[in-house]
């Protein structure tokens, strides 16, 4: 009896507290939604004032080119996180695609690219099957592929760094169309594709529905398994694409290092961009802004001669800050 009364009293206090916080919650909700753009704007302004030659076309181009692999992977990751999943294997998929590309380059660049993408898709399919058919938690399933995939990439490449000289790949890596680097155009195309997917297709609705409540989605007739499978294949395909881009840019396939820890950068970009880890929401533009924000932070610190170590620490603080702001909404 007493406990019931206490519970009621607690609820009343809670409600009162919540009403008082109402206006504050609105503000913080706005910040949670748009904080990433605000941060990006602030950073650009700071750089315009402090960093010499920041607004140079070359520098802007460089920043965009450097963010491409993370941005492309983050877009796939956003879809996965939208279903309340996670894909830790993307870095290893990059390595596999890079190793396959180098291995099959003898058959011509297009064949090699196709095989690299197919290899990535295959890994994605394994991820997707483990998660959708066997009900294994995404973090464990993709962790296994992270460990095994990197090993597989090293086996394919026999652990060696292979230099890749090919005119087509060279063109992809450093070519430009109308002054815009081709890799940036590719990333733009991927972003457009994901935007349409999320905003305009049934598939996009399914993704968000599954992330919101998988049980209810299943009962409502959403093809949960098929959607999950597709999402993991897409994520791996984008990672393979990022592997191809990175290999073309560096003119080398280095399976022991390419894409190492990129899963963390991609997850960071997604979360900073306002997609909650609990799923049910996918923000494409926010994800891109998140990737760009993290890229600009490290570029800013490096251009002011701050070492790599402080870059990491600042990134850590920013991740915590971004998630702390978003925390209010879920409460």
């Amino acid at each position, binding site marked *: 009896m007493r406990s019931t009364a206490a519970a009621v009293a607690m609820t009343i206090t809670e409600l009162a507290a919540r009403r008082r916080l109402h206006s504050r919650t609105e503000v913080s909700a706005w910040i949670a939604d748009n904080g990433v753009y605000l941060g990006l704007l602030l950073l650009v302004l700071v750089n315009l004032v402090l960093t010499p030659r920041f607004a140079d076309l070359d520098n802007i181009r460089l920043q965009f080119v450097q963010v491409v692999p993370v941005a492309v992977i983050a877009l796939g990751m956003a879809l996965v996180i939208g279903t309340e999943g996670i894909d830790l294997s993307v870095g290893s998929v990059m390595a596999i695609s890079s190793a396959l590309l180098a291995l099959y380059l003898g058959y011509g660049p297009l064949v090699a690219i196709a095989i690299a993408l197919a290899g990535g898709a295959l890994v994605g399919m394994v991820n997707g099957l483990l998660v959708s058919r066997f009900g294994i938690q995404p973090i464990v399933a993709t962790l296994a592929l992270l460990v095994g995939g990197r090993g597989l990439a090293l086996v394919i490449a026999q652990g060696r760094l292979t230099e890749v000289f090919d005119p087509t790949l060279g063109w992809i890596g450093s070519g430009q169309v109308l002054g815009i680097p081709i890799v940036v155009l590719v990333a733009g195309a991927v972003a457009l594709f994901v935007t349409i997917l999320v905003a305009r297709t049934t598939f996009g609705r399914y993704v968000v529905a599954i992330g919101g409540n998988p049980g209810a989605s299943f009962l409502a007739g959403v093809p949960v398994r098929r959607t999950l499978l597709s999402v993991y294949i897409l994520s791996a395909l984008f990672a393979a694409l990022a592997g191809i881009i990175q290999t073309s840019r560096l003119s080398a396939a280095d399976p022991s290092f390419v894409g190492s820890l990129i899963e963390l950068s991609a997850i960071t970009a997604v979360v900073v961009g306002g997609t909650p880890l609990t799923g049910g929401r996918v923000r494409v533009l926010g994800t891109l802004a998140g990737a760009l924000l993290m890229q600009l932070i490290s570029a800013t610190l490096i251009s002011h001669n701050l070492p790599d170590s402080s870059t990491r620490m600042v990134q*850590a603080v920013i991740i915590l800050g971004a*998630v702390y702001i978003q925390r209010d909404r879920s409460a």
Partner: protein
Amino acid sequence: MSTVVRVPDRPPPAMTSLDEAERAATRRERLAGTLQRNGAFVVLVIVALLASLLFGTSFASTDNFLNVLEASSFLGLVAVGMTFVIIGGGIDLSVGSMLALSAVLAAYGSQYGIVVAVALPLAICGLLGLLNGVLIARAGMPPFIVTLATLLFARGLAFAVSNEGNKIFHIDETLAVIWLGQGSILGIRVPIVIAGLAFALGWLVLTRTRYGISVTAIGSSEDAARLMGVPVARFKTVMYFVSGLLAGLAGLLVAARSSSGQSTIGTGLELQAIAAVVIGGTLLTGGSGSIAGTLAGVLLLNVINNVINQVGTLSSYYQQVVSGVFLITVVLVQRYLSREQRL
């Protein structure tokens, strides 16, 4: 004499055949449960027996056995902390970076004497673990992100202390702290003894104390645990604090073992630890798991490494492939068994 109305919990005798089937199902369920809990041990024994048959004394010798144990001890320390965190429904990605940070700090601190060499890394790692705990338990932030940030931060700090990884601090061989990594007690190397103690203590705490049982309750249902009067926030904070502290201890031992502190070690260790815990039968969803299973998981990973090293022709890359395949297999089997249990 009070009359107790017994509610029949079994169907009436007329339905014997159904009863029989039910009992068989219960038996199967129990067997599946036992296998899920001890599967890692069974596999460990099988792998070890096969390796003994294949390689003879080069595998099955006391020396090699002790080597496997020593190699396991660093991962083992980290995995004990991780087991508690995962049973409590969380995850700690920061342990690998913490280990590196601790090793660097231990080597750096050794210039100022043994007390600093031991206290500095433990204090800093404990503090970072505490920070993890407070942000997760008090501020309600997701463990995955918080410990991801600590992963970055600790690695950054390790690099900052060691001049961007260019400076490798060495520990003077005459300093007593070296004993922690290279000394032995009754012929057994100190890291093995320390890790063994950690496992024993972890098992005791998990199964025999209010804290351990509360952690399991928190992992099953945080709300229910709170309603039962478990101090959820405090216990969760302790969980991450201990995990950080154990990672720090492991780093200290690694530094003492190699007489130096390098900022690049321990990358991916968090994933290895998670893999060991999961292979050991602890569910990532929290609420169930065992320290003994984790011990089997850690040993299994290291025995596999050892076996692959014995096969000289296999490149070390296969090690990763085998580990990955192994993790999937174990999880699939566990998944199958726990489904059986629910029937």
